[in-house]
């Protein structure tokens, strides 16, 4: 047993060394949300290390002290029914730990669902992030541009990502900005991020969605607001308009590289939010899932959503 403890310790140091060379993305945040999450993770690791320590100490002590080879041959282990006080202790302390962690969890979960503290008064940059087999489309409705497989954002300004999917459920994840959230075909989910540093960050789909899933990665580039505006103007000046035909072709192609367009697909293929939400879009193919012919059902859809969501799958984006 001791040998194994040693081995474990050795291995962990080795791992730390190995990983020390390249930082753990999740613990190397570039914005307040990821920072909150990294703090939560570190805090929980410390608390859990304490739990592990208690168990390991008891384990090592009991094993070394009460092994048969160390005890006299005529030693008869006593009959022990249990001990009320000990049991109270090892119920009460874990309950306390769980209570502390619960408070932390509820607080931080609320925090990461909202616009980061200090940025509430700024107007957020809205970016729609839609996944299709197997790529990401980013639409900037106000800037009136669209990109594929990369997204540029200004620093120190809240960014509101609105996610949805043109097919299987995917999960939109930029570890250094904050935790992930699912993108689904029938509703829009939201993430509020702020990048506080200029950096190139990895973003990807983390929810298995079929054959091309491994390659559903995109680059997130945070840049100063000035550079961001320059980039937007650059795209507008140089890139062609995205048309419905062009967009359908994009949807049908499994893998494409980076693309930039003037205009967004939202004008002819709106996101499933507001009057377009719900599951009532009666079409078979992925490419024209957001069919216009259903727009007049808007009011009905709305009512449907509100009443039919059962409590445990309540979605945060009810509007």
């Amino acid at each position, binding site marked *: 047993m001791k040998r194994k403890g040693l081995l474990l310790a050795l291995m962990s140091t080795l791992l730390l060394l190995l990983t020390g060379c390249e930082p753990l993305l999740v613990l190397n945040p570039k914005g307040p949300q990821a920072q909150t999450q990294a703090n939560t993770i570190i805090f929980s690791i410390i608390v859990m290390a304490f739990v592990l320590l208690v168990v390991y100490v008891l384990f090592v002590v009991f094993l070394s002290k009460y092994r048969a080879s160390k005890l006299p041959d005529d030693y008869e282990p006593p009959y022990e029914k249990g001990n009320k006080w000990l049991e109270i202790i090892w119920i009460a302390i874990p309950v306390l730990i769980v209570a502390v962690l619960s408070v932390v969890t509820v607080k931080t979960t609320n925090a990461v669902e909202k616009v980061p503290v200090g940025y509430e008064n700024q107007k957020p940059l809205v970016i729609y992030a839609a996944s299709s087999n197997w790529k990401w489309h980013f639409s900037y409705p106000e800037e009136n541009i669209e990109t594929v497989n990369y997204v540029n954002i200004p620093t120190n300004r809240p960014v509101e990502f609105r996610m949805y999917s043109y097919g299987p459920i995917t999960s939109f994840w930029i570890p250094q900005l904050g935790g992930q959230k699912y993108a689904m075909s029938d509703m829009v989910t939201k993430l509020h991020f702020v990048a506080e540093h200029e950096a190139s960050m990895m973003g990807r789909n983390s929810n298995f969605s079929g054959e091309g899933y491994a390659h559903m990665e995109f680059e997130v580039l945070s840049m100063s607001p000035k550079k961001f505006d320059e980039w937007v103007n650059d795209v507008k000046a140089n890139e062609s308009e995205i048309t419905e035909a062009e967009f359908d072709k994009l949807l049908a192609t499994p893998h494409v590289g980076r693309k930039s367009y003037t205009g967004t697909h939202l004008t002819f293929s709106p996101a499933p939010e507001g009057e377009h939400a*719900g*599951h*009532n879009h*009666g079409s078979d193919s992925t490419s024209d899932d957001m069919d216009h012919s259903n727009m007049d059902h808007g009011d009905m859809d709305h*009512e*449907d959503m509100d*009443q*039919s969501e*059962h409590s445990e799958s309540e979605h945060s984006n009810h509007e």
Partner: protein
Amino acid sequence: MKVNHTLPLEYRTEENSNKILGFWIFLGAEIALFATLFAVYLTLWQRAGNGPTAAEIFEMKPVLAETFLLLTSSFTIGLAVHSMRLGLKKPTLVFYLITLLLGAGFLGIEIFEFYTYVHEGATLQTSAFLSSLFILLGTHGAHVTLGLLWGIAIMIQIKREGFNEYTANKSFIFSLYWHFLDVVWIFIFSFVYLKGLM
């Protein structure tokens, strides 16, 4: 084999009382099964898509008839078990027969109801609401169908062998099953039809 003569015939051997307990637990599992189906139905029942809604296709009259038939059959199966306890073979068989006929009547109306829905363009493939409706009703209907076959098999056995530890045990367990289907129907009546028509 342990035999306790103070108990009713269907409980008398150890094996028989095990079977009855086992069947109660099975009914527990069936409750979980139907509860899941109800949860699915209640989640989806307003998601009619482009198809008809509940209020558009439900009709009260056949449903009331179904309810009446099934409730009555629950009463007659009770009478059958009562007659069995008294050792009366013929009345038991008669009440069994009435129960099964009522069950068959229920099933007939349900099939007709399904036929009407499909005729109106409301099929399993139309919408999530209709899928969940057909599967909930269909699962109950399949249980009734299986019950009819099972009931006939038990009737043949009682006719051949009279009451013994096998037939008594089987018919008692069958009565539990039949009452259970009745209870499920009451829930269907309230949470599907009444809710849908309100």
